[in-house]
């Protein structure tokens, strides 16, 4: 008797979460905890991007906008209002969802040929607003002044351990929700669109509606990632919404494996580790990253998890 696939996902998520939460009980390592906190934000960002990009075949190059928007919306609400942290987080994600719905509504109806162009242009519009609206966002200096630490459910997020626990829980729940989307009928429909949109529309799929849903959901979860990023940096920076950040997310998706659900998260982990290792030796991180990407794109050409799945076919199904 095979376990129900949905409960299998929940079990895997629970085990992963227990392991991550247990590690600090045995060994405290600030560097490792930092890494996991940053990874939780980045993994949500990259995995959510894979929904339009990998599942649907819509090449969005402006995903950083929603990551940045989530971070700014959350940080600003925490600084300017007395809302509790969960309420501010939910509101920030709602704002991001609305924004990605509006951007998506304009973009998905246009020719798919230049989807990447236009999503990038929207991101740069957002970026230029962030830079020029100094009184609100702090301009290119970023939003400073920190995020007021309000206790939630006995958690004190200024403690690194509590932040670590909070981010792990949010990230695992977020990934589980995204997993649910990708295994739902809509997820399958998105794959149909990627494979053969003409046939899909012949079968009754309303292409723009399915694409808009995918784009909106992706934006929402990128916003959630942005909230975690804002917690980590205690504020928000324009770099979160800048194009290299979108490029990094695309590389994370490709590096980990576009056809595997956990691929983007793995890619994000590898990329973060690479970043930490390289910046210790040189300030020219872009140069090193560029060379790594070229080696990957021209040589390896397939994401790590996709590669493993081909080597051991059907082991994951």
């Amino acid at each position: 008797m095979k376990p129900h696939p949905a409960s299998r996902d929940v079990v895997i998520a629970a085990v992963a979460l227990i392991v991550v939460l247990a590690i600090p009980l045995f060994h405290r390592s600030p560097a490792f905890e930092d890494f996991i906190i940053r990874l939780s934000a980045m993994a949500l960002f990259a995995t959510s991007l894979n929904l339009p990009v990998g599942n649907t075949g819509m090449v969005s190059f402006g995903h950083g906008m929603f990551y940045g928007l989530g971070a700014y919306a959350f940080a600003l609400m925490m600084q300017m209002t007395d809302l509790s942290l969960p309420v501010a987080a939910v509101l920030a994600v709602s704002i991001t969802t609305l924004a990605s719905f509006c951007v998506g509504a304009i973009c998905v109806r246009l020719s798919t040929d230049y989807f990447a162009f236009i999503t990038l242009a929207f991101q740069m519009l957002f970026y230029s607003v962030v830079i020029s609206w100094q009184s609100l966002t702090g301009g290119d200096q970023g939003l400073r002044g920190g995020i007021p630490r309000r206790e939630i459910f006995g958690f004190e997020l200024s403690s690194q351990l509590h932040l670590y626990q909070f981010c792990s829980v949010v990230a695992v729940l977020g990934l589980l929700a995204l997993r649910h989307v990708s295994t739902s009928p809509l997820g399958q429909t998105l794959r149909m669109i990627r494979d053969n949109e003409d046939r899909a529309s012949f079968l009754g799929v309303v292409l723009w509606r399915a694409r808009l849903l995918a784009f909106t959901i992706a934006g929402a979860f990128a916003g959630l990632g942005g909230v975690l990023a804002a917690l980590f940096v205690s504020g928000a920076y324009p770099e979160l919404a800048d194009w290299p950040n979108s490029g990094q997310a695309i590389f994370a998706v490709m590096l980990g494996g576009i056809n595997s659900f956990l691929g983007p998260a793995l890619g994000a982990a590898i990329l973060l580790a690479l970043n930490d290792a390289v910046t210790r030796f040189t300030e020219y991180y872009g140069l090193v990253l560029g060379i790594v990407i070229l080696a990957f794109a021209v040589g390896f050409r397939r994401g790590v998890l996709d590669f493993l799945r081909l080597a051991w076919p059907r082991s994951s199904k």
Partner: protein
Amino acid sequence: MDLDALGACLTTPACVVTQATSGLIVGMLLFLVAAGVTLIFGVLKIVNFAHGTFYMLGGYVAYSALGATDSYALAVLSATLAMALFGVVFERALMSRVYGSNVLMQLLVCYAVVLIFDDVVKIVWGPEFHAMGMPPAFQVPPLFIAGGVVPPFYAVLIVIAALIAIVLGLGLSMTRLGKTVRAAAINSQMVSALGINTTLLFAIVFAVGGGLAGLAGALAAPVRSLSPGMGFSILIESFIVTVIGGMGSIGGALVSALLIGMVRAFGTIGFPQFTDGLIYIVMIAILLLRPQGLFGRSP
């Protein structure tokens, strides 16, 4: 927002001339870059995200060449040729390896090239801003047209870009190569079915695109400062130009580049805080009204 200032400018001939001239040079430089983007997209169906890097390197090459030779003409020429060559090498060594694969791979390769050369520029020329300064030949008193100030270099720049536009337009409509390029933009299978050497065609398209971007960088160097990352902002704007004008249309690129130039020049007066945003708003408005762009064929 300062609509009074904008109104005052629009009713003063001197201000109109000054702003229109600066709009023209912005638009013309943009056109040179966008023409390459639209050509490459038209023929190869590839969005070249590394195109801004060609422009940036063109500017830096011209800067060094001027230092070495003291001749601005030679500097412009060497930047153009160097970037044409760079375009071919980029196409042959990197892009041609990912033609068949996922669009994301092509995007990644471009992204990598942008990252690498931003850092290469930092290593070779340093991270700080450089000013090339006006070449000696143009250090003469400005022209005055209707009371507006027009530096002679601006006039020369506009004329050169206009000549290029004419040559490109004629080349595309009159020559065999140009006809092939236009045919490829409409139907890429047809071209390979006709037995045209696509390898050569693709390399030529990248050479022309790279050369134009290099030229734009060299022409921009005296009027703008050089910095690593300068390629990206013009890349975004040239994308906007391409989208507004209609993918693959050179005429559309010219018109929309000039439109963007003017929006920028007059927007600085009316909306000094929000000039960038203004351009995006123009783009979104045009896309909502005409999704295929001003001169694009409807699908």
